[in-house]
């Protein structure tokens, strides 16, 4: 499954890199990208664990950028 999200208030390019790297390392994730310029996050992962992946990704985003709001793109 593949889903896109909008990271509202993403102002730190370095954090975007770190978020991308950590989400990529999550189990069950096949592809992840955080595009600083478009403030867009795309995650592609196993269907069975997709909900858990999204939750984990949300936690990672909040840890690096507490003010960013994750929205459905």
């Amino acid at each position, binding site marked *: 499954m593949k889903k896109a999200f909008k990271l509202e208030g993403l*102002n*730190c*390019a*370095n*954090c975007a*890199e770190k978020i991308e790297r950590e989400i990529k390392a999550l189990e069950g994730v096949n592809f992840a*990208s955080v*595009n*600083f*310029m*478009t*403030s*867009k996050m*795309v995650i592609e992962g196993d269907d069975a664990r997709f909900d858990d992946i999204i939750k984990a990704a949300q936690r990672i985003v909040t*840890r*690096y950028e*507490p003010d960013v709001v994750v929205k459905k793109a």
Partner: protein
Amino acid sequence: MPIEPHQRRIAEIAIGLGLFLFAVLLEAENAARLLLFLAAYAVTGGDVILRAARNVSRGQIFDENFLMSVATVGAFCIGQYSEAVAVMLFYKIGMLFQDRAVEKSRKSIAELMNIRPDYANLKRGDVIDRVDTDEVNIGDVIVIKPGEKVPLDCVVVEGSSTLDSSPLTGESMPKDVREGDELLSGAINLNGLLVARVTKNASESTASKILDLVENAAAKKSRSENFITKFARFYTPAVVGGAAFIAVVPPLALEGAALGDWVYRALVFLVISCPCALVISIPLSFFGGLGAAARKGILVKGSNYLEALADAEVAVFDKTGTLTKGTFEVQEVVSKGIYNNEEILKFAACVESFSNHPVSLSIRRAYGKEIDAALISNVKEIPGQGVTATVDGRFVAAGNARLMQMLGITVEDPGEAATVVHVAVDGEYKGYIVIADVIKEDAAKAVSELKAQRVKRIVMLTGDAESVAESVAMSLGIDEAYGGLLPADKVQKVEDLMAGKSAKGKLIFVGDGINDAPVLARADVGIAMGGLGSDAAIEAADVVIMTDEPSKVPAAIKIAKRTLSIARQNIAIALGVKGAVLALGALGMASMWAAVFADVGVTLIAVLNAIRVLGSDL
């Protein structure tokens, strides 16, 4: 009226600045002055400290907030009150400018790609509702008013109008459309009211596909971007380590070294330790380049391809449909037997009646009459040679000299610099048809511009006869042309050319994307032309040119070169200034002011420089 976040930031900076100036002007060294400095610091830097504390509590050290907090609190501790406040103040001012600059460039890129339709006017019976494009299904009828964007790919069922498709193609010439014409989403309806039937849903429509492609392009990173990402991971820990070393070792090891002095030098390090200038400006440069290219109707599928385009050394063009229009026309029919011209055309048209090859289409157009499909059987298409079939009980072959040779029929070379279709009936040679292609208006310009951009070898490949290849190449100024190639030969030729180029130089292949997928894949950069509406071409290529102008190839290389040069400038500026201030800081010759400039000032310069990629009219 609610306070906007950036208004609040400006207010904080203004109040902080006022308090700071007041404190500086107070000449006495007393508690009141210290209190003023602390107040100024709290107003400007309070949120930075809070965020640092919050992030540290989540195990997130080495972030920008933390480093700035340590640097400024450290400055307070060694009695540098005014510098502590000033550094925080300038950091905040710099961040404000930087965020605004990033915001601005995000907006200008978004405007460049402003093709996403906002709504559709869905027509159900006599009722017209404005709905989200996601809610429209294939087969639904929509109404497109003048001034509106075409929301989904559709076919006109009623009305006529003029369409501006420049947001998709960069082509400014408006196009007339009427009943039965296909419309692509993202184009703008200029004057008439159109009623149309939807042929693709929102996610499959052209506008979404283009946007997806450009937005996802950033995921395929260039070497410079990968270098910066790796560099950033080691830079901060290294600089912070250096700061710790400077604060601790020299005061212990050197005689008479003042602790305060060395701590100050360490704090200078901390201020510069964020790699932001690089991390923001390099991807921004590339994204700007992708946006600028998209604006011209050139879709580049990744920053890595932009990088490769800038190093183009060999440009290989397919002829038909790329340098020539691919709209063939029958020029001449020559009979070599008992049949008249009309009959020869008829045989050829029958044999070719199941093929969509441009040559076949031109023969059918020239024949101009209905073909009775029931008369034709056993149609066999032989790639790169021609077609054979049984027509009304006779074995008919139509194709090039190689096909005739294979069938054991001797033909004379008519010596035409054009495509020749030989016709044989029941194994006997009956004559030939001369078909010529038309060279595109801007093909010669494309070749000369590529030469001006120091592309060393320009090569043309074609399945057509050697004589055709030579005459087209000659008129375009192409030095190398190879004719008579089968699809597999083209791959082989490209591999030979790949082997013959320098290690750093790149080979680009330009084709129409329809039957050259293997070659597109083999080249360093595969460019498909005329991609508008052709999913196959968009799939197969690394770069898709929406219009069918070969001159977009040198345009793409120009944008790529400009993007690369700006990205390199940014790397040089950022590394140069940071390196210099680090060195001076270690020697005790750089103040925290210089450090703030090296951090925020350089980021700002780099971001502004990156935006130039977009602004320039290439």
